[in-house]
């Protein structure tokens, strides 16, 4: 705890995803895929809904990590150099994220999106009105453009970052400031459309201008939590010898701040719709206030806000891995619930069209839910783990490295 400047980084060990972890993750993915397949076979709408939830969940974590990475570059955040390879690796999930999200929405489209059903659209003038945005070509074209664009920028930033490890050239740092700026602008423009097409259009009559911001907030807090989990995991394994409590403190603060931001957006979207009480908008909340869903609806706020806020409020807790890990796990579960609550009540309603008494048979929590999550999650761990091993975990020749090593608060 001395304020003396360190003379240089501690030696960086090589990291390779340990075989037991890789095998366990692969086993999860295979078993999960089986359970997912079983889910699709037995109750198609539920299976595909879980596919969407899980695929979108990991896309949101990937893009949230990309956002953290871009902000680190743009703001020239000196403190974060020693942990930067973690979000850099998490964001490389995006190409496979595109594949998984594309696959489940392609094969499950009619179970997920009312607007994909020509007969329904023919009788619904609102859906006809929205067709320019809600049609398969715009949906998949937009998805490839958006996630593809995010991924391209992420890999460009990563390429510069890794190239610097060998040549130490500062031009990579400058290039990443520019790329980060481009990413932020592109992300801002696209997240609204992505959130609208992939999630909000599961309830195609409902609309909220805040929805893109809401999804951004959720993605960011969940990505922060996953960054915390990976960082502490790697640190425990001795692979991040240069990361100390001060860096964890900053990650803890990031989780704390964006959990609060998420709560702000969550409350305000609800408050404004509750207050104006316009039937076009209230349907969304009414569906989630069905007796079987409402408890989860409340739990969502507890997991994503109440727990992180009160646990992370005292300073020592933000620096303590024993506290950070359970809180990050709470958020990881909470973010899944957040997306689940967006998708499930909507698709359940679609599946039981015309018989409202069957609608409130939720919540659905069982093998298909767990299976879809493990399927995508297992792949996620394998991909991110191997990407972590592709480059040194320390950007050893970054011009801001010394600031990060000396970071003290």
């Amino acid at each position, binding site marked *: *705890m*001395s*304020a003396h400047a360190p003379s240089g980084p501690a030696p960086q060990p090589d990291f390779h995803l340990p075989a037991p972890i890789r095998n366990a993750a692969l086993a999860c993915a295979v078993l999960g895929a089986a359970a997912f397949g079983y889910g699709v076979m037995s109750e198609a709408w539920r299976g595909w809904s879980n596919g969407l939830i899980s695929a979108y969940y990991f896309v949101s974590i990937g893009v949230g990590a990309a956002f953290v990475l871009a902000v680190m570059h743009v703001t020239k955040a000196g403190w974060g150099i020693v942990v930067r390879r973690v979000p850099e690796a998490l964001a490389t999930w995006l190409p496979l994220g595109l594949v998984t999200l594309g696959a489940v929405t392609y094969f499950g489209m009619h179970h997920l999106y009312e607007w994909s059903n020509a007969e329904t659209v023919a009788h619904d003038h609102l859906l006809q009105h929205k067709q320019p945005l809600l049609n398969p070509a715009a949906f998949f074209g937009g998805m490839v453009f958006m996630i593809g664009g995010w991924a391209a920028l992420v890999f460009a930033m990563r390429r510069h970052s890794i190239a610097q490890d060998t040549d130490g050239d500062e031009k990579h740092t400058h290039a990443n400031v520019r790329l980060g700026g481009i990413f932020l602008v592109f992300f801002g423009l696209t997240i609204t459309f992505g959130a609208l097409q992939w999630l909000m259009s599961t309830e195609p009559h409902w609309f909220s201008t805040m929805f893109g911001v809401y999804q951004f907030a959720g993605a960011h807090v969940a990505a922060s939590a996953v960054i915390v989990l990976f960082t502490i995991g790697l640190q425990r394994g001795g692979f991040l010898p240069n990361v100390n409590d001060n860096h964890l403190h900053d990650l803890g603060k990031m989780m704390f701040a964006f959990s609060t931001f998420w709560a702000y957006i969550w*409350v305000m979207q*609800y*408050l404004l719709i*509750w*207050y104006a*009480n316009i039937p076009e908008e209230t349907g969304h909340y009414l569906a989630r206030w069905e007796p079987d869903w409402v408890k989860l609806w409340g739990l969502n706020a507890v997991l994503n806000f109440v727990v992180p806020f009160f646990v992370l*409020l*005292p*300073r020592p807790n933000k620096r303590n891995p024993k506290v950070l890990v359970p809180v990050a796990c709470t958020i990881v579960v909470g973010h899944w619930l957040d997306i689940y609550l967006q998708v499930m009540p909507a698709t359940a309603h679609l599946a039981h069209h015309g018989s409202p008494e069957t609608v409130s048979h939720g919540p659905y929590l069982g093998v298909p839910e767990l299976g879809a999550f493990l399927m995508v999650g297992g792949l996620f761990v394998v991909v991110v783990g191997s990407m972590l091993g592709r480059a040194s975990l320390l950007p050893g020749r970054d011009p801001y490295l010394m600031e990060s090593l000396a970071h*003290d608060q």
Partner: protein
Amino acid sequence: MHDAAPQAPRSFLVGVFDDEHAILAVTRAIAAAGLPIHDCFTPYAVHGLERAQGLPRSKLTFVCFGGGAIGFLTAVALQTYTQGIETSFLSGWPLNVGGKPFIPNTAFVPVCFELTVLFAGLSAAAGLLLFCGLLPGRQPKLLVDGVTDDKFAIALDTAAPGFDEAKARALMAAHHAVEVSYIAEAA
């Protein structure tokens, strides 16, 4: 100006330094040598000096949190009492506005938040003044020349157990003190 204090004012051995590196180093050295440090005086908050000096973490965060909790409860009580309870003294009668519930938790969020922040902020500020004895008209007890400008000083209580003038002077000199002198506390 004031009446004389019952006991004689304390006297301090004060070393004055030119920059923050010197004050940090000398403070660490004096603490390591086991000499009791009364206090340091600096023109700005020197990062790490509180640890060098061995100060405990300020408890004002708890004051702030407590104030916030009281503010939150005040807001809840104020709003429910005035909006939803009809019979008690001075309480309002429930009024139907836009068909909203009399005690709508959602609509109470903003005022709860504002009063939480107001109480937390004011109690933290009041706590600061109280903890440090800062009040309008107060004069500093021990004011070393130049510490509000460009000097950094460390003061050792000459009456404190363990005070060793020779050792202290040697350490201060080793760290390039620009001045070492005795200063008496203001009455």
